[in-house]
């Protein structure tokens, strides 16, 4: 039930973002409702974390970090996949709106990936006694973060150029190929990592599963709202740049 709701949210958010990107100025008004949905979900998620999810027997209260660390993973992957989709559509159509979607996906994906990389060590220190370990999952996640930070640097150094748009579109499509290595790092490392297993296969108790599911849904809609706002800002900045070039 919760898994279906999470999948439905991913599909609905993706459909809404593609619909929005097709006409950003005309459809950005709908972002208000998505923002309200995200804001309404936040207290529900936090109340579930505080009062509904049980305190885990081994780790105690610090296991509650699970409910913020795991939900950040979906928007991270979603953002980078969206960047590849937007990049592919830009290469195919050469329409700027898809380029805006690609850049927005990369930037918001980096925000959530940063969150995951910061919250993870805050959990690791009390749970495992160390902030960081160079195991395959952590190292691959850091590499993924560097790949998309480099994407944003490449983009900012050559803002507004068609060549930069083409290069970053190809780069974004290539970068997304790292995601399976991050996800399956635990299988590739054959248990030689700090992470026990992929949460989807853990068979969580129902209370924990529902709480993390609501966290995922909340983060998906926060992500969708941030993407919409980033697309709008990107379009406005692009218009200002075009007017500057026109004046010059």
């Amino acid at each position: 039930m919760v898994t279906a709701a999470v999948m439905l949210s991913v599909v609905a958010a993706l459909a809404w973002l593609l619909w929005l990107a097709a006409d950003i100025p005309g459809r950005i008004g709908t972002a208000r409702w998505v923002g309200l949905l995200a804001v309404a979900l936040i207290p529900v998620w936090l109340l579930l974390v505080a009062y509904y999810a049980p305190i885990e027997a081994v780790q105690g209260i610090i296991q509650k970090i699970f409910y913020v660390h795991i939900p950040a993973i979906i928007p991270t992957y979603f953002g980078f996949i969206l960047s590849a989709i937007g990049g592919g559509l830009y290469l195919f159509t050469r329409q700027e709106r898809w380029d805006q979607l690609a850049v927005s996906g990369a930037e918001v994906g980096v925000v959530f990936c940063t969150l995951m990389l910061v919250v993870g060590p805050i959990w690791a220190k009390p749970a495992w006694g160390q902030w960081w370990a160079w195991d395959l999952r952590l190292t691959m996640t850091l590499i993924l973060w560097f790949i998309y930070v480099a994407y944003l640097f490449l983009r900012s150094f050559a803002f507004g150029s068609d060549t930069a748009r083409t290069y970053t579109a190809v780069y974004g499509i290539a970068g997304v190929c790292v995601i399976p290595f991050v996800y399956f790092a635990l299988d590739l490392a054959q248990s030689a990592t700090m992470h026990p297993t992929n949460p989807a296969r853990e068979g969580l108790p129902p209370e924990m599963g529902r709480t993390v599911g609501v966290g995922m849904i909340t983060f998906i809609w926060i992500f969708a709202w941030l993407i919409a706002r980033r697309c709008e800002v990107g379009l406005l900045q692009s218009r200002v740049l075009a007017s500057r070039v026109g004046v010059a």
Partner: protein
Amino acid sequence: MPWVLAAYGVTGVVLVGYALYLRAARGAALRDQQRRS
């Protein structure tokens, strides 16, 4: 408990901070656009 509060606090700061950055960037772009029109 401090670790849990730190994790949720950092999450709040990052997400709200990014949303405020987008709001400021939107305002700056709109002002720039009006100045040029």
